[in-house]
């Protein structure tokens, strides 16, 4: 249990700047994720925290103590590697005992702590196995037990689940969360998988090109991304190019298709345009759409009726996004289904629970509404 503070970490390999001025704080007992695509510098940050890479500048502080110059073995950090890095010539017992042996822990205390660690990761009875005799998930549990048995101040996890099968990975996420909760250790995980980060972490940092592009709780970053890149990285999204205009009624987005939407006041905060009108990207998540069946329009074959009231030479803005169109496809994804709707040339994806999607059929006319509060606006 310790607080980690990282201040202005910077690292270049040769000419290539890999990490640029990264700072963040992980409070005691928190599960913190460094999330980013490959090449975003997240693993290098973890390796600077663990001491295997020396930063060009910046500091790493644990409970206020500067450990930047300390050798890895003196930092008291448990590290779990992507490929587990279990000692293949030792049994499970001796793998876990390694850190205690190095610390010269007495035999009775050692045996008790190893048994506690095995119980924590649900591997009682596997003491005499060798790593090669275990499944990937079991190996990862041993790696966790080995790192935790020495009661490290920090637990560092480097893509710990990416070598596992899809099914095991999802199971191990819950296990990892439980083990971190039960041990109470402060943990930092590096991952490229936003689902993993959202499921595991109390707080996360999104990295891109070695820089922090956003940080916050998973919910904050998912629902209020600060750029369209972050929005797309965190999950599926619908995006439209528009011109955003400041009007007395608030911000209004006008699309080339002749539609106008009135956006929430808060949306303007991230639309860093200047003057009266600026190009922007309007986005909303598929699950934010309220989808209802439209009563069949009396003049049936007249083509899609875009917007609530499209008539007149100038489109009157609607409150939030309102689209009327027809269902193009319903894709069954198990618990949820994705409904693709075409409204004129605009296309939008909606996410609904599968039991609700069962009532929809392809070709059916539907009305979509996204409240202003659920719309994101990014400057182009």
């Amino acid at each position: 249990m310790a607080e980690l503070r990282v201040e202005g970490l910077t690292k270049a390999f040769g000419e290539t700047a890999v990490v640029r001025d990264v700072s963040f704080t992980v409070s005691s007992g928190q599960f913190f994720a460094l999330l980013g695509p490959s090449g975003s510098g997240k693993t290098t940050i973890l390796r600077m925290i663990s001491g295997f890479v020396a930063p060009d500048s910046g500091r790493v502080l644990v409970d206020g103590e500067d450990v930047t110059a300390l050798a890895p073995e003196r930092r008291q950090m448990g590290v779990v590697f992507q490929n587990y890095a279990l000692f293949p010539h030792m049994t499970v017992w001796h793998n876990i005992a390694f850190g205690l042996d190095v610390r010269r822990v007495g035999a009775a205390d050692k045996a008790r702590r190893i048994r506690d660690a095995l119980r924590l990761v649900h591997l009682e009875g596997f003491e005499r196995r060798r790593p090669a005799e275990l499944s990937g998930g079991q190996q990862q549990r041993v790696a966790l037990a080995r790192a935790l048995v020495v009661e490290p101040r920090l637990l560092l996890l480097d893509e710990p689940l990416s070598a596992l099968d899809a099914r095991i990975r999802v199971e191990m996420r819950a296990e990892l969360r439980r083990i971190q909760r039960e041990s109470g250790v402060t943990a930092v995980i590096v991952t490229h998988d936003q689902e993993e980060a959202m499921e595991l972490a109390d707080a996360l940092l999104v990295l891109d090109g070695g820089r922090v592009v956003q940080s916050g709780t998973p919910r904050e970053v998912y629902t209020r991304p600060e750029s369209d890149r972050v929005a797309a990285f965190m999950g599926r999204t619908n995006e439209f190019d528009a011109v955003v205009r400041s009007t007395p009624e608030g911000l209004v987005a006008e699309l080339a298709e002749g539609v106008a939407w009135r956006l929430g006041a808060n949306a303007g905060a991230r639309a860093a345009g200047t003057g009266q009108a600026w190009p922007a990207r309007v986005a909303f998540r598929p699950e934010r759409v309220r989808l209802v069946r439209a009563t069949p329009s009396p003049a049936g074959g007249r083509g899609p009726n875009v917007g609530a009231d499209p008539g007149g030479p100038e489109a009157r803005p609607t409150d939030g996004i309102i689209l009327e169109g027809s269902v193009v496809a319903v894709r069954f994804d198990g618990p949820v289904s994705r409904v693709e709707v075409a409204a004129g040339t605009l296309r939008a994806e909606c996410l609904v629970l599968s039991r609700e999607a069962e009532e929809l059929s392809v070709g059916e006319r539907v009305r979509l509404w996204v409240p202003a509060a659920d719309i994101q606006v990014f400057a182009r």
Partner: protein
Amino acid sequence: MNGRARRRTWGERAALAWTVLMYAFFFVPLATVALMSFNRSSFGTFPIVWSLHWYHALLHGSGLLPAVGLSLEIGVVVAVASVVLGAMAAYAMARHPGAWTRPFTVAFAATITVPWIILSIGMNIVLATLTGQGNSVLGLYVGDLALSLPYAVLVLLARLSQLDAELEQAARSLGASALTAFWRVTLPLAAPGFLAVALMAFIVCFNNFIVQYFLAPFGVQTLPLVVYNSIRVGYSPDIDALSTLLVAGAVVMVLVVQRLGAVRDVVGRRSG
């Protein structure tokens, strides 16, 4: 997992037959030597009169056993030296690779291709310049070591390079110093490589007659030298007896090494 393996094509049968033939090619001479060692006749004449005479002769009176002793001694010393010196060089190259690693590797590989007879001439000259005499017991050790070291470095470099550096890092994150991590993790995992290197050094010491011929002082007889001399003087079946024992010893040694998983290091099989 290939269920079609049972139906062999003609090409495959031919390849199998070849394999068997090649073994014959190699083992018939060894079997012949073994056969002769049990034949009472001094000239390998038939019919065979079964006898342990030549084994008795080997043990009493022949000069072969002291030569085997000397060769074993050189072999052990050179094997240990190859492992220790080779491991130091290979570890430096594996853990701190740089611009210098590649030319060094090429240079070591090149030394393997230099004919031993040429190397032995050079060493004779150097030793003569340094110690005043080209032939010495020290020279025997140094010469054999010079032949086995390039193999040792290259094999250990290969072994250490394929050891995951993360294993050492895992050990260090658990509180082990760099030295402890090497001692408790790297060393045990590289052990088959060490065994392979020791075995190769040993083999080199038994094979390089030519280096020993040029470097051994008068009266110092290694196994290749004494066998060579005794055959020049007159072939005697106690050499057959010795050969049979050595071949048996070699087979036992390989079986042990095989058990310990080092054969793949000798012959370069992937260990993943």
